[in-house]
């Protein structure tokens, strides 16, 4: 593992950076309860479409403050939602502030967050949405849902694809024919419509946990077929390799050969493939949420954050910072692609 990291670093600094970026991001979403300044459904009713809060070091009289601070804001123009800073009082940025109690993953309770400011001022790194909710906090919480959907989804399709592709390729014959026809049936449908029709098979008024599981199921059901076909192709060629014959001559069973020799030799491709396919799951979830079929408000997911922000073009002209959320998600997805591309080379033993 350490060797792999080292190789990745030597191969491409950029991809190495991507890896750390993604790890940090996953970590941040995981601990959103501590890191986010506000709970995802906390509303500042008097601050909808608030631009990103300015963080100051100098007050209005030109004094320097070592601790950064913000001003409270008041509505300037209620129609166009412009805000004006109220310079009468400064609200210093505080670390490990005490606030409303939240549960970290339903178990541990915490009432301290990494940073925040006293009410009624607010700190909105990416601004607020139409309900006056902090978009940055929602992105962190939403990442928890979107990233876990993609990870679980990828894991399920990867396992399904690996098992079916591996068995089909290795044993061949009638097993191969049956499995591949099944895969082809799945693959002839355009995946977007397949996703919609699968979703349409279930009622709209599901609980949020049911919707979550349903989305995971739908996305992995769509994703595994392509992977299975590719894995089958790879297994077909790997099983003819001399080292497979040698493994057989040692008296290893079919399962051991499949598990310990054939599958690992597909990894340089399949790990790359799944890394690159992660964005597909995130976008799939976003597409469902955008159409109102995915994660429902007030729960945040990247899909419904996008739909409530940049989904509305009219608002975008007046509140361009809403684009930040889109750019943020875009950057995460780009990093998956960069990492996947580099892994292709790093995992190939011929490059070691």
């Amino acid at each position, binding site marked *: 593992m350490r060797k792999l990291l080292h190789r990745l670093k030597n191969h491409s600094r950029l991809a190495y950076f991507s890896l750390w970026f993604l790890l940090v991001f996953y970590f941040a979403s995981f601990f959103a309860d501590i890191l986010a300044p506000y709970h995802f459904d906390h509303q500042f009713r008097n601050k909808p479409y608030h631009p990103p809060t300015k963080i100051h070091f100098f007050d209005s009289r030109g004094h320097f403050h070592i601790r950064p601070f913000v001003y409270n804001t008041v509505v300037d123009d209620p129609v166009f939602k412009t805000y004006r800073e109220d310079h009468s009082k400064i609200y210093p940025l505080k670390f490990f502030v005490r606030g409303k109690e939240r549960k970290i993953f339903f178990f541990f309770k915490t009432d301290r967050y990494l940073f925040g400011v006293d009410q009624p001022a607010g700190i909105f790194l990416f601004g607020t949405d139409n309900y006056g909710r902090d978009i940055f906090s929602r992105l962190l919480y939403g990442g928890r849902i979107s990233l876990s959907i993609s990870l679980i989804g990828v894991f399920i399709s990867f396992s399904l694809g690996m098992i079916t592709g591996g068995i089909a390729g290795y044993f061949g014959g009638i097993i191969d024919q049956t499995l591949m026809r099944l895969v082809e049936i799945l693959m002839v449908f355009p995946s977007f419509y397949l996703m919609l029709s699968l979703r349409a098979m279930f009622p709209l008024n599901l609980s949020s946990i049911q919707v979550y599981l349903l989305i995971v199921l739908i996305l992995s059901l769509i994703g595994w077929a392509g992977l299975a076909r590719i894995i089958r192709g790879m297994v077909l060629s790997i099983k003819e390799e001399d*080292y497979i014959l040698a493994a057989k001559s*040692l*008296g*290893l069973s079919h399962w051991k050969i499949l598990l310990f020799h054939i599958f690992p030799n597909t990894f340089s491709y399949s790990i790359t493939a799944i890394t690159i396919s992660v964005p597909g799951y995130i976008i799939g979830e976003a597409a469902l949420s955008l159409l109102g079929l995915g994660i429902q408000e007030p729960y945040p997911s990247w899909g419904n954050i996008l739909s409530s922000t940049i989904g509305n073009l009219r608002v975008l002209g007046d509140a361009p910072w809403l684009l930040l959320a889109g750019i943020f998600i875009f950057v995460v997805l780009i990093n998956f692609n960069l990492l996947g591309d580099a892994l292709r080379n790093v995992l190939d033993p011929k490059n070691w």
Partner: protein
Amino acid sequence: MCLTPKTGRMERMLEIKNLSVLRIERKKSVPILNDINFAVKEGEMFCLVGESGSGKTSLALSIIRLLPKSFKIAYGEILINGKNILGINERSMRNIRGKEISIIFQDPAAYLDPLFTIGTHLQESFHGKMANKKELISLALQEVGLDSEIQTVYPHQLSGGQQQRVMIAMALINKPSIIIADEPTTALDVLTTRQIISLLNAIRLKHSPAMLFITHDLELAMEIGTRIGIMYRGNIVEIFRPGVQKPYHPYSKILLGTIERKNSKLVVGVEKNKFYNEQISQVCVFFDMCDEKEENCKKIIPFIWHNNETGVRCIKSGRNTQV
């Protein structure tokens, strides 16, 4: 069959009787091996010599029952320590592979899984008691002249010679009674070839397995073999003892002639297309190429044994075969 009192093993460890192998090719069947008969005893180095395409590898793979799918064993018996392995199921066969019989292949780089360290390879080949594992692995490495530290290394980090030593260690680790080496030195340079050969010979003398050494190099076979089988187009045309007898078959003589005269131009060449399209021919296999053919040769020639150990597939056999 008699038991040797010293080891309690059957004396004839590997015995092949009337083995015929076909390749099924779109409803047509092409003969690959035809009526192979020989036995290899404990401590013997039986060298199988033939040009490429003569069926040596197919014979080796028949013995461990790992022929490609299109190949069919049409007839015959293969006895390993007295047991006919063609009658047993795949699971019992797996217990024989690697334990009672192990095989060393031609190109070690291709036969080691690139993703796994040498240590993993050795552990995978080990079938014995887990308690002895570490000890026996380093013992096997020591025996083939490798350092124990090599276990952490990946195959591509080794030289061809080292890789082949690893293969030999893997073959050796379960103390099999039969070792097949299929052109183990063809991918190696001259000096490394020497080292590997003497290593194999040392192993034979120490553990006395039945060794089937496959090579296209008759000169090498003459040097190390206790007996030599000459293969031509899927047939064993002659079995003789180097140093004791001169080979008799016209094909063996041509092969030997190319060594003695250091003449690289081989007189015979297998006309591959012809071989493929032909059904089992109704004349002697060597008929087309033979300088000494007669009218009598236009029939299927049986393998004629001089004694239990040597013989020739030629009608003029038996005359003048002593040195």
